[in-house]
């Protein structure tokens, strides 16, 4: 039990280091898209440690407690994430629904803390984040339930093993429409450009983070990096067949994150009603068509 918990914290720390490094490299990638040189690859580490070294103000105990709850909830969620087939902290508990439920703890902590700051822009940001969540969850859930129906299990590592056993046929290829829906939902989850509505620095002054500075903002940055690690890892395990060893996991992870970053670097920002309308129009249609094709007609490549 103790070793499992230590191992889980190690997984969360690995996710933090991996995602922070890859985010720094991706800032260089986006800079090259814009014909710039870009920052150092470890710039994200510098930002986080600088924020932790600053002095900060508080807006009441709800504000402080919410930040700790957000960070703790996300670390607790990341502990269950399998990295490869063998590197799992709690082998029986890597169920997909555990992530769906536990990730809400971190999100709600952040929402509570942002509302505790008393800034109206923070409340608008939280409202928009929840609305975006409502939009992308429905098509994503339809696709994931299709996968669960096909594989007969909801354990992430078993879904990954299923894809590796079937001649390495990833669900991204076997369910092409569903794969595209998954990619679009992932962009909504991570908060990349067309669906960045809840951050919107020029419009609502970075939304939920408007009143944070110094240490609290540093902890929220760490929380954000681990959240992105969880979401991208979910995509890697569900659609790209997981990984046999850690090198393939890092390669697949880097490929997915760089792809969504390059897509997002050429887009503008949607309004919140455009986000909801977009997700309820195209991805949901594609997801339902994909579920019909895969389950009733049995056409799985």
């Amino acid at each position, binding site marked *: 039990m103790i070793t499992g918990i230590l191992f889980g914290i190690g997984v969360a720390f690995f996710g933090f280091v991996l995602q922070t490094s890859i985010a720094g490299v991706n*800032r260089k990638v986006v*800079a090259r898209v*814009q*014909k*710039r*040189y*870009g*920052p*150092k690859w470890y*710039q994200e580490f*510098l*930002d986080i*440690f*600088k924020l932790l*070294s*600053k*002095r*900060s*103000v508080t807006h009441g105990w709800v504000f402080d407690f919410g930040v700790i709850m957000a960070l703790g909830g996300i670390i607790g969620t990341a502990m269950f994430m399998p990295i490869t087939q063998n590197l799992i902290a709690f082998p029986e508990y890597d169920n997909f629904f555990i992530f769906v439920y536990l990730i809400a703890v971190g999100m709600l902590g952040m929402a509570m803390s942002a509302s505790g700051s008393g800034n109206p822009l923070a409340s608008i940001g939280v409202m928009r984040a929840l609305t975006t969540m409502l939009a992308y969850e429905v098509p994503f859930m339809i696709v994931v339930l299709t996968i669960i129906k096909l594989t007969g299990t909801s354990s992430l590592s078993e879904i990954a093993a299923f894809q590796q056993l079937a001649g390495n046929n990833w669900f991204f290829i076997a369910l092409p429409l569903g794969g595209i829906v998954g990619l679009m939902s992932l962009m909504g989850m991570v908060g990349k450009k067309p669906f960045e509505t809840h951050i919107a*620095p*020029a419009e609502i*002054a*970075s939304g939920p*983070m*408007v*009143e*944070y*500075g*110094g240490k609290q*903002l540093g902890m929220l940055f760490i929380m954000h990096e681990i959240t992105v690690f969880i979401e991208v890892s979910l995509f890697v395990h569900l659609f790209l067949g997981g990984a046999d060893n850690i090198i393939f996991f890092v390669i697949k992870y880097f490929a997915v994150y760089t792809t969504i970053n390059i897509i997002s670097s050429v887009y503008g920002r949607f309004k919140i009603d455009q986000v909801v309308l977009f997700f309820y129009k195209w991805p949901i249609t594609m997801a339902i068509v994909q579920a019909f094709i895969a389950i009733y007609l049995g056409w799985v490549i």
Partner: protein
Amino acid sequence: MLSTKFTKMTKEEVDRKWWEIGDFFRRNSLWMLMYCTGCCAIELPPAMTSAYDMERLGMGPMATPRQADVLLVTGYLSLKTLRRLIYTYEQMSEPKYVVGFGSCTINGGIYHDSHAVINQLDQYVPVDVYVAGCMPNTEAVMNGFVDLMDLIKSKKANGWKDYHKRYEWYLENQKAALGEVRVHDEFHE
């Protein structure tokens, strides 16, 4: 044979070491809050985009005062904007730095005889780096940022400490210009 002797460091030395480590992170990741009041603000887009690419230095724009480290005062300040500038500066989390752009923040520039603008910025908030010129060249702006990083490295960017130490003096100047610094009516709450 070389031998290393470990002596126990005093608390001041330990604090100084931690502060130097923090200074390394702070000077390599300066987040700006752009207070674009005057024409010098037009020098910031080329400094940020592909022509000069400020992100090489780890600098980037931030949305709110709480998140930012550097306050850029780009140009003249009328009395109405000075009050907002003071509010903004006091909201920033410490350590914080101020960069004044153009001759308007140094001695009033072409608005030196106007009744509606202030002439010297550093009488109201402490300024760490001035970038002279009307308007400054973009190279000069980038050079000013590198100067600020050097000042942080050599522990001379102490404007925020000075604001604590000589707050009475600053408040006196602010009151002389504005009358009352904190106004409580329906436009300021």
